């Protein structure tokens, strides 16, 4: 069987691009392809990942300048055609700035940059990114961000809830959605959301940092595996 290509976009200032490449390459039959922000050619990839980091130094607002990188025009079109796009951390910020997802991420509630382990639940396990997770499964996936405080107007939150678009929530170790388990002040403990079409997911936790035994958790692998199974069978 020939390998399936998955694109990882590299913006100036991305710093989780190679971690993501490493995680993607650990799945058999999947080949990571690095896509430079200044290019237009998506090289036949079947899914695209926007990695974490500080694209353009987070100048102006996190993700705001990367959103206008030449490759983003292609990524937006790719997403509009229904192909899977995953944004991790800074990648999530880029997806929000580009309008592929609704809402915004502001400064963490306690002003601090947070780099720590969190526990989350895939509250919607029926997406192409979470099909291998169970809804009550508590996942240990780390975060590393200064601006991860998810905000959206009330009508947007209501619409996200109505359409099952909230995919990950911060929880305690028992899987309960509590204020203490909310690291950054995100509305309703939101850690990740998906678009209505179900092909664009953004999340603050880093699944690529929880994809190998020596990293202390394998819980991020389910996300990649769900996605790769999906693209292998469509």
């Amino acid at each position, binding site marked *: 069987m020939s390998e399936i290509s998955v694109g990882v976009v590299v913006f100036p200032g991305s710093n989780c691009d190679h971690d993501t490449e490493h995680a993607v390459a650990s799945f058999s039959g999947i080949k990571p392809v690095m896509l430079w922000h200044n290019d237009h050619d998506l090289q036949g990839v079947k899914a695209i990942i926007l990695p974490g980091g500080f694209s353009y130094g987070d100048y*102006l*607002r996190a993700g*705001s*300048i990367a959103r*206008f990188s030449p490759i983003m025009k292609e990524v937006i079109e790719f997403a509009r055609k229904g192909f899977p796009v995953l944004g991790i951390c800074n990648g999530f910020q880029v997806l*929000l*700035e580009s309008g592929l997802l609704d*809402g*915004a991420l*502001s*400064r*963490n*509630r*306690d*002003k601090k940059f947070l780099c720590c382990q969190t526990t989350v639940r895939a509250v919607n396990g029926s997406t192409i990114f979470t099909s291998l997770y169970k809804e009550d499964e508590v996942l240990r996936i780390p975060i590393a961000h200064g601006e991860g*405080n998810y*905000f*959206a*107007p009330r009508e947007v939150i209501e619409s996200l809830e109505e359409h099952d678009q909230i995919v990950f929530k911060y929880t305690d170790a028992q899987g309960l959605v509590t204020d203490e388990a909310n690291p950054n*002040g995100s509305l309703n403990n939101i850690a990740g959301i998906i678009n209505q079409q179900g092909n664009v997911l953004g999340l603050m936790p880093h699944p690529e940092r929880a994809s190998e035994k020596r990293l202390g958790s394998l819980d991020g692998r389910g996300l990649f595996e769900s996605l790769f199974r999906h693209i292998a069978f469509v």
Partner: protein
Amino acid sequence: MPYIAKIKVTLRQSILDVQGKAVDHALKNLGYSTVESARIGKYIEVTVNEEELVQAERICNEICQKLLSNPVMENYSLELEHVK
């Protein structure tokens, strides 16, 4: 003759301004007991080479909406001055 746009981008009132809050606390710690609050925003100057004020204004509003502010959480205001 170009115009210079003096743009202020501020967080919407409903958004928690953690930087402003930190400054507010610091000012109170310094003994400024009458300080009620502090909020932090961004100040940006953009020079546009346009002859007509209306056209300069149109472009600057577009720039603010497209890139300089995020309407989900920020407001902006702008003043245009003729550069002599």
